C-alpha cells in the first residue's frame, strides 16, 4: 500500500474515532490519546507523551502514522492576536 493510501486510511480512521468519541462520552476512546499506524489503531493511553513514544516504537515512519486526542473539537477557531 502506498504512503498516500495509508495517509487517507489513517485520516478516515482518526476522524471516525473522534466523531464517535465526541458523540458518545462512553466510547472506549473518549478522552484518550489514540495512535494510528498503517490504517489501524495501535496504541491508546491517557497521555500524549506515552502514545507518541509507543507509536514511534511500533511505526518509526511518521508518514504512516496519525495521533489524535479523541473527544476534542478541533473545529473550534483559536485566535493568535496580531503583533503590530
Amino acid at each position, binding site marked *: 500500500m502506498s504512503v498516500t493510501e495509508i495517509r487517507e486510511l489513517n485520516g478516515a480512521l482518526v*476522524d471516525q474515532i*473522534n466523531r464517535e468519541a465526541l458523540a458518545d462520552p462512553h466510547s472506549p476512546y473518549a478522552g484518550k490519546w489514540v495512535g494510528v499506524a498503517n490504517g489501524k489503531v495501535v496504541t491508546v493511553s491517557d497521555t500524549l507523551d506515552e502514545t507518541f513514544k509507543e507509536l514511534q516504537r511500533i511505526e518509526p515512519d511518521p508518514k504512516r*502514522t496519525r495521533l*489524535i486526542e479523541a473527544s476534542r473539537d*478541533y473545529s473550534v*477557531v*483559536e*485566535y493568535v492576536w496580531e*503583533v503590530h
Partner: protein
Amino acid sequence: MPRAIWPLHRGRPRLEVVLNTLSGMLLSPRNLVADSGAGSMQAPFELILTDQDCLASNATLTTTIQLGGAFSGAFPLYSLRIQVPQIGFDRILQVVGVPIVLTGFDGLAGFRFLNRFTYGNFGDPDQFGLEV
C-alpha cells in the same frame, strides 16, 4: 528552582527550544517569541513553528486546525518532541505548522506553553525567562 533567561530580541520577549531530528540529532535552538496572546489555555496547540521545522523534527500529524488573527486559515497540528535543556524540560507537545512566522523569529510560544512555567522578566526589563 531551575530558571532559563534570554535577552529580549528586537524588544520582544523570546525563548529558545531545541528540536530533534528522526535520527535523534539536535537541531540548532529555535528562537521563539513568547506570546501570551497566542491561543488560550484550551487551545490544542502550545507552539507555532514553520511547517519545515515540524517535518524535519519527526513530527506526527494530528489533524488540521483553524486559526484566526495573525495566522488565519487551516493549518496542520503536529505532535513533536520539544526540549528546553536549561530547565530540564523534555516533552511531546502539540505544535501548529505554518508556512512563515514573524520576521526575526523561528516561531511563537503560545499561552498554554508559557503557562506551564512561572514566566516574565524576573526583575530585569531587558530579559525574559521561564522558571520551573
